[in-house]
């Protein structure tokens, strides 16, 4: 594995989004991974509709919360195509599901994997390099006050409550860390990103990790 790997360097990671006052992190994480893997496959990086996932993945609870794994499972089972964001805009509230014909431009999920990588973060690094950005669910309680730097403490595992997109890692410095895109806007953290120490499942970063295949 390279000592440093960042999918942003390949221009396949969309800009940081802001979920606003809606508990839609699970939808942002899911869509973030799909649009990146689509771009890795040679297509133009295009923002896909978070609102579609929010409204239509009924096993989840829209702005009241949900699971990225359930959202991916819904996409895989139904073969629903995620349409471009421009066709189904984000409103930061749950709405009625809009249906599009199968001939409409969009991206379908063929498969996904979801694993617990606790104790195997090196394998998780391999999965990131091999497949693309990963959706992880973390404990983000202490992130209310986060400004920047690498989180090494005050962050428990096995109490996951927030979905994020892991876009890279950097093991070249004193503290190897994950590079994680959040969905709380660019005013939060380091331009919307947060860094988490690699190796001891800090914030539960390895507890539930999904990779997408298109």
């Amino acid at each position, binding site marked *: 594995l390279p000592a440093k790997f960042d999918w942003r360097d390949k221009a396949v990671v969309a800009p940081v989004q802001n979920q606003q*006052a809606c*508990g839609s*992190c*699970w939808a942002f994480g899911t869509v973030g991974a799909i649009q990146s893997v689509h771009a890795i496959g040679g297509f133009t990086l295009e923002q896909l509709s978070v609102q579609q996932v929010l409204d239509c993945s009924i096993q989840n*609870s829209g*702005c*009241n*919360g*949900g*699971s*990225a*794994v*359930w959202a991916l499972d819904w996409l895989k089972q139904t073969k629903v195509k995620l349409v471009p964001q421009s066709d189904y805009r984000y409103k930061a509230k749950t709405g009625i599901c809009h249906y599009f014909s199968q001939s409409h431009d969009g991206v379908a999920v063929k*498969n996904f*994997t*979801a*694993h*617990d*990588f*606790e104790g*195997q973060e090196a*394998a*998780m690094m391999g*999965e990131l390099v*091999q*497949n693309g950005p990963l959706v992880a*669910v973390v404990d*983000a*309680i*202490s992130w*209310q*006050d*986060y*400004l*920047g*730097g*690498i*989180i*090494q*403490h*005050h962050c428990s595992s096995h109490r*996951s*409550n*927030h*979905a994020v997109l892991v876009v890279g890692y950097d093991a070249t*410095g*004193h*503290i190897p860390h994950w590079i994680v895109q959040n969905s*709380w*806007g660019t*005013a*939060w953290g380091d331009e919307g990103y947060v*860094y988490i120490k690699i190796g001891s499942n800090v914030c*539960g970063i390895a*507890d*539930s*990790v*999904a*990779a997408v*295949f298109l």
Partner: protein
Amino acid sequence: LFRAQFHRMYDVTSDEFNRRHNYFRDSKKRQARLNSFSAVPQSATYGINQFSDLSPKQFRDLYLTGSATRVPHYSGLTPEN
């Protein structure tokens, strides 16, 4: 400064202002405690941001709504291999 930076419009004579002010003071104490644990360069720093006038419960209820589904431990097998 906080209200100006994060465009908070609440009236300074209102109950809401008092409530938010208390949450803000609590945030400052919490941040001081979090910052006291590590002074190593590159370590995380904590301070005032757009969530500083929320109580921890409000923050949790609004933003921490992701559920972790129980998933199997990684065995090295992927759809490719």
